[in-house]
């Protein structure tokens, strides 16, 4: 709590760091902040080409599925990636003066939250052009984003601290995020996993997955990112219907579970960060 009041007292540092991050990311680029949406749109264009045109997938509304899934995922993964250098890159500042170190992972989170905000502004402009009707359910995006933010902060804090002592963290995290991406329903609808089975397992991985399939499905759904992605889809695509229609997975139970996971991660991350923070200035 004392840390929180200190961060509030030093909020100008936080704000200055966030502004700096934003300015520096698109320096020397003509389109500037438009890249906050152009980047994910181009990525989505690539997937569209691969899955829709090369592989002839016949998902209805595939483009909408990708946009709504990718925005929260990108916010999450970018925050995590930035966090691995959030402290190490600021060594000059850390050695120069005292300020609550919590500001560093927090600035990584806030910078990416603002990028997400820019992306939304551009997206809403596009909706306007396409004459998509806005409705009140779009607001469901806010709690969904908040869920990702709390979860991401916890991971960001612990990764930022560990990265100071072990350079490996960055590389491990990059690859784990690659795996996590496919374990989050961004490129495919949630139902694909919920209804999925393993028909004839022929190696130990598949046997293992099959023998614990209900458990893995539960873990898949309770992942805060799954809940957030489905929240986005419900808000933007399905007019606020309950995000998970499948009666075997009561949405609110899982949403509460995911929230507990996110909050616990944030608390754990903060504790780990605080314990390491005093030694930051002594490292390289």
């Amino acid at each position, binding site marked *: 709590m004392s840390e929180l009041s200190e961060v509030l007292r030093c909020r100008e540092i936080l704000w200055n760091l966030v502004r700096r991050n934003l300015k520096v990311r698109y320096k020397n680029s003509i389109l500037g902040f438009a890249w906050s949406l152009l980047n994910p749109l181009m990525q989505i264009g690539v997937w569209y080409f691969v899955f829709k045109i090369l592989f002839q997938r016949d998902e209805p509304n595939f483009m909408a599925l990708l946009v709504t899934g990718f925005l929260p995922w990108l916010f999450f993964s970018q925050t995590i990636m930035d966090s691995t250098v959030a402290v190490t890159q600021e060594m000059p500042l850390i050695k120069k*003066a005292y300020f609550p170190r919590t500001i560093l992972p927090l600035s990584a989170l806030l910078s990416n939250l603002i990028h997400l905000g820019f992306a939304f502004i551009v997206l809403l402009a596009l909706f306007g052009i396409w004459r998509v009707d806005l409705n009140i359910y779009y607001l469901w995006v806010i709690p969904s984003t908040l869920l990702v933010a709390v979860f991401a902060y916890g991971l960001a804090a612990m990764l930022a601290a560990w990265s100071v002592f072990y350079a490996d963290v960055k590389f491990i995290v990059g690859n784990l995020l690659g795996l996590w991406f496919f374990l989050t329903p961004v490129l495919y609808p949630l139902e694909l996993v919920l209804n999925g089975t393993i028909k004839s397992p022929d190696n130990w991985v598949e046997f293992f997955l099959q023998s614990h399939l209900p458990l893995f499905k539960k873990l898949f759904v309770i992942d805060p990112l799954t809940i957030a992605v489905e929240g986005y889809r419900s808000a933007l695509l399905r007019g606020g219907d309950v995000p998970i229609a499948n009666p075997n997975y009561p949405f609110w139970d899982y949403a509460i579970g995911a929230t507990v996971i996110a909050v616990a991660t944030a608390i754990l991350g903060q504790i780990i960060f605080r314990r390491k923070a005093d030694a930051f200035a002594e490292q390289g």
Partner: protein
Amino acid sequence: MSVIEVRDVWKKYRRPHVKTTSIKEAALALLRGQHGYDEFWALQDVSFEVQQGEAIGLIGPNGSGKSTMLGMLARVLKPTRGTMSVEGRVCPLLELGTGFHPDLSGRENVFLNASLLGLSRRETEKRYDAIVDFAEIGDFMGSPVKTYSTGMVTRLGFSVAVHMDPDVLLIDEVLGVGDEHFQHKSFGRLLEFKEEGRTIFVVSHNLESVGILCERAIWLDRGRIVKDEDSPEVITKYKAAVEAWERSLAEAKARDAPAS
């Protein structure tokens, strides 16, 4: 009233035998039984008090713990044992010019740096012209800092720091910032600070400047206080000790030379 209180402070650093920066290296070192650390005490049992308005010089050879002491006063480092307190607004002049982002303009960097040192945006705006004036940067303030010369960067760093209106000024070897002219100017600024009754704590190898600026000096050697007295006496004794040490080195060399 004492502004700085340092009581029985010890600072331990751990120096790994093999510097481990990756999990693989750490695992290998563990297997080879190299997981031990060299522990060494950068500061041992250091105590002193500083009264308001005092100017104190911290002198001693390299590796004697001066910068560690300053880092702890700035709250950048934490003492392993003991307590310390510093009252009022502390302005550390450590690592001048670092922390400037090369892609941001001088102006943007001034605001970032000032906020780090505890100045609000409004306070910084009020002092902005004075900061630019003092640093003598002028036209360059709108350009990215990567286009600045080294001297310009340190001058700007110094200028931001001395416009903080600090109660306690912590200075690490920055008496020689910039060219001859700027050195005079910055030294003059420090003398002004002193006249205004602010507390100054200087780490420097420039004994002459310490002698002029500080009435009291603390001599550190291998983490311990050797002397804490009026600066002329401490400086004289320190100089004598260095000379004696150099003489003994020369003698040892002369003794070894014919043998080899």
